[in-house]
C-alpha cells in the first residue's frame, strides 16, 4: 500500500467516524484529500476499492439509504468501530501475555499479537507474562491445510479436499461440513459431517493432500448441539490386555530395555532374559526390531513373528 493511499484511507476513516449524518459519495470526494483530482468513473472505482479494503480490516461501514435521497450515504458508527472499554487486573493481563505467545506460526500468531496490540493501545497494560519465563506453551499449526480449515470453521462454510486414509494407497475426495478443529497430542484434526459417508467423521490434517476448497456460501454449516469435538477425535480407549514378552538380551547391550523391563535374569552363553510388559505386539515388534542383533523375542509367537516380518522387510 502506497503512502498516499494509506493517508487517504486514514483520512476516510476519520471522516466517516466524525460525521453525524451519513455522507454521500460526492460529499466524501470533496472532504477526503486524494480523491478530488480524478474523473467520476475513476473516483467511483477507487471509492469502491477503498470501502472493500476497510471492511477487510474489520472496519464496519454503514450504508444508509434515505428514501428522500438518490444516493446512499456512508458512515462509521462509533459503537461498532471502537474496542469497548476493557480494564484488566494485573494478574489477568499477565495471563493474557502468556496466551498471546502460544501460537507458533504465522496466521494465528499474527492475529494474537494484533489483538494484544489493540488491547495495549486501548490502555491495557500487559506486563511480563505469568511466572515470567518459567513456562513456554506453544501450539504449532504447521499443516498446510490449517489456515483454510480455520477459515472454513470460522465462516461456517462447507469444504472439499483430497484425503488419504491411514496407511492407504489411495486418495479420495471428501466433502465435509466443518464443526471444528482439534489438536491432540500435537496433531491437528478436523471434526465434521462427512457428506459422502453421511456420518460425523474426524480427519487428520496431515493426511489432507493438496488444497482445501470452499464449497458454496459462508454461514451454511450448523454445528449440532451437544457435539463434543474432543470426543470425536479421541481413539476409543479399549482396555488393552497387558501381556508379558520374554526377550533374550545380549549381555552388556540394551541398557534402556533392561531399565524398562520388569525382571532381568542372567542366562546362558552371554545372553540374559528379560520380561517386558506390553499391550500392542506391533509396537513392541517395532521397538525390538530397532535393537537389531542385540535382542531376540522368544515369546509370545505373534510378537516374535512380527519382528521376523520387519527384519525380513529391512533385508529385502
Amino acid at each position: 500500500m502506497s503512502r498516499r493511499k494509506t493517508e487517504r484511507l486514514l483520512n476516510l476513516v476519520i471522516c466517516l467516524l466524525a460525521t453525524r449524518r451519513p455522507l454521500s459519495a460526492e460529499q466524501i470526494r470533496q472532504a477526503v484529500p486524494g480523491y478530488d483530482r480524478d474523473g467520476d468513473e475513476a473516483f467511483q472505482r477507487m471509492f469502491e476499492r477503498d470501502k472493500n479494503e476497510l471492511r477487510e480490516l474489520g472496519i464496519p461501514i454503514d450504508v444508509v439509504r434515505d428514501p428522500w435521497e438518490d444516493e446512499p450515504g456512508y458512515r462509521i458508527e462509533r459503537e461498532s468501530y471502537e474496542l469497548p472499554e476493557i480494564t484488566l487486573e494485573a494478574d489477568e493481563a499477565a495471563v493474557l501475555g502468556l496466551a498471546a505467545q502460544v501460537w507458533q506460526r504465522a496466521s494465528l500468531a499474527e492475529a494474537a499479537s494484533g489483538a494484544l496490540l489493540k488491547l495495549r493501545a486501548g490502555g491495557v497494560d500487559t506486563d511480563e507474562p505469568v511466572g515470567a519465563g518459567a513456562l513456554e506453551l506453544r501450539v504449532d499449526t504447521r499443516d498446510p491445510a490449517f489456515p483454510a480449515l480455520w477459515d472454513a470453521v470460522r465462516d461456517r462454510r462447507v469444504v472439499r479436499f483430497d484425503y488419504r486414509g491411514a496407511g492407504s494407497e489411495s486418495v479420495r475426495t471428501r466433502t465435509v461440513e466443518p464443526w471444528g478443529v482439534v489438536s491432540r497430542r500435537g496433531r491437528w484434526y478436523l471434526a465434521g459431517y462427512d457428506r459422502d459417508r453421511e456420518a460425523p467423521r474426524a480427519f487428520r490434517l496431515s493426511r489432507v493432500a493438496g488444497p482445501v476448497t470452499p464449497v458454496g456460501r459462508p454461514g451454511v454449516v450448523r454445528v449440532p448441539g451437544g457435539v463434543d469435538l474432543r470426543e470425536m477425535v479421541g481413539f476409543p480407549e479399549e482396555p488393552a490386555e497387558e501381556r508379558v514378552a520374554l526377550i533374550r538380551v545380549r549381555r552388556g547391550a540394551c541398557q534402556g530395555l533392561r531399565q524398562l523391563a520388569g525382571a532381568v535374569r542372567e542366562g546362558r552363553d552371554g545372553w540374559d532374559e528379560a520380561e517386558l510388559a506390553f499391550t500392542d505386539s506391533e509396537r513392541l515388534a517395532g521397538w525390538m526390531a530397532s535393537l537389531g542383533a542385540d535382542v531376540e523375542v522368544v515369546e509370545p509367537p505373534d510378537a516374535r513373528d512380527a519382528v521376523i516380518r520387519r527384519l525380513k522387510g529391512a533385508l529385502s
Partner: protein
Amino acid sequence: MSGSADRLPRLLALVPYLMSHPGAQVGEVAEVFGLTEKQLIDDLQLVWMCGLPGHTPGDLIDVSWDGGEIIIDNADTIARPLRLGIDEASALLVALRTLAATPELAEVPGDALPRVMAKLERAAGEAAAAVSSQVAVDVDAAPDALPRVRDALTRRRRLSLRYYVPGRDEVTPREVDPMRVVVVDGRTYLEGWCYRAEAMRLFRLDRVLGVDVLDVPADPPAEAEPIDVTQGVFRPSPTDELVELEVTPAGRWVAEYYPCERVTELGEGRLRVALRARDEDWIVKLALRLGETGRVVAPPAMAETVRGEAERALALYAHQS
C-alpha cells in the same frame, strides 16, 4: 507488523496507544510495535498529515516527538482502537482455554483465567466466542515427573534424572539445573542445563524414569540460554549426514514425526524423504523399525549397514529357541 499492507491497522492502533501513553519514548513505542525508530518517525509524519475534513491546521492531528518524547493531540476521532477481529479474539480465547485446561502447567493465580476470558468475550462479541469454542487444543500435561520438576523450579534446586533415550536405547543419569517447562506439540519438556552434556537440553517428561530434587541450589552457568523451540524441538545439525528413505503408506509417519529436508510423493501413497541423521546408529534403528514399510536408498553404504544388521538379527531367529 512492519509491512506496508499492515500500515493502516498499525496506525489505527498507534494513535490510541499514544493517546493512552502520553509522553511515551520513541524507542519504547517502536519496540511495542515491532518497528525501527526510523519507521516509527515515518508513521508519525504520516499521521501528522491526516485529520478531519477541511484539513486546516486546526483539523489536523498534532504530533511532536521533541527529545524523543511523543505527544499527540487533536486525534479524538480515532482515540480508541478498532475492535478485535474474529481471528484476533479467537486466537487469544483458544490459547486461554488451552491454559485453563492445563492447570498443572500454568500455575495461574486465583481465577484470573476465567475472569480474563469473560472480559475478552464481552469485548469481542458473540461471533468470536462461538468460533473459539470450535477449536480445542489438548495438551498431555501430567507426566509423573511434573510435580517434582515444578517443585525444583520454584525452589531453584538441582534435579537428578534417570532419562531414557529411545533412539539409542540408553538410560542415563543426568544432573540438571531446571530453567523452564516447555510444551511443544502437545508434549511437556523440562529445559535446563545438563551437566553431562555441558549444554542446554530439553528432556521429554514422559521419558524421565526417575527424578529427585537435590539439596543443591540450581546454578546454571552464564552461557545457559533458552533453546529456540519456535521451529520445533528436533533441530538436526546441517552437518549431519543426509539420508534418503523410501516409505510405503504405512511408513508415512516418518515424514510427520521427523523434520525432513525434502519430501517427495512417489505415487500410490509412497514417499521419498531426505532427513539429517544424528548418527548412523539412529538411522539403522529407524530402518529396522520400519521393516517392510520403508528402506534406506542413499547413501548406499548406509543401506548396506541396515541389511547387514537385519541379517545378523534374523540369524537369531533361524533356530527355534
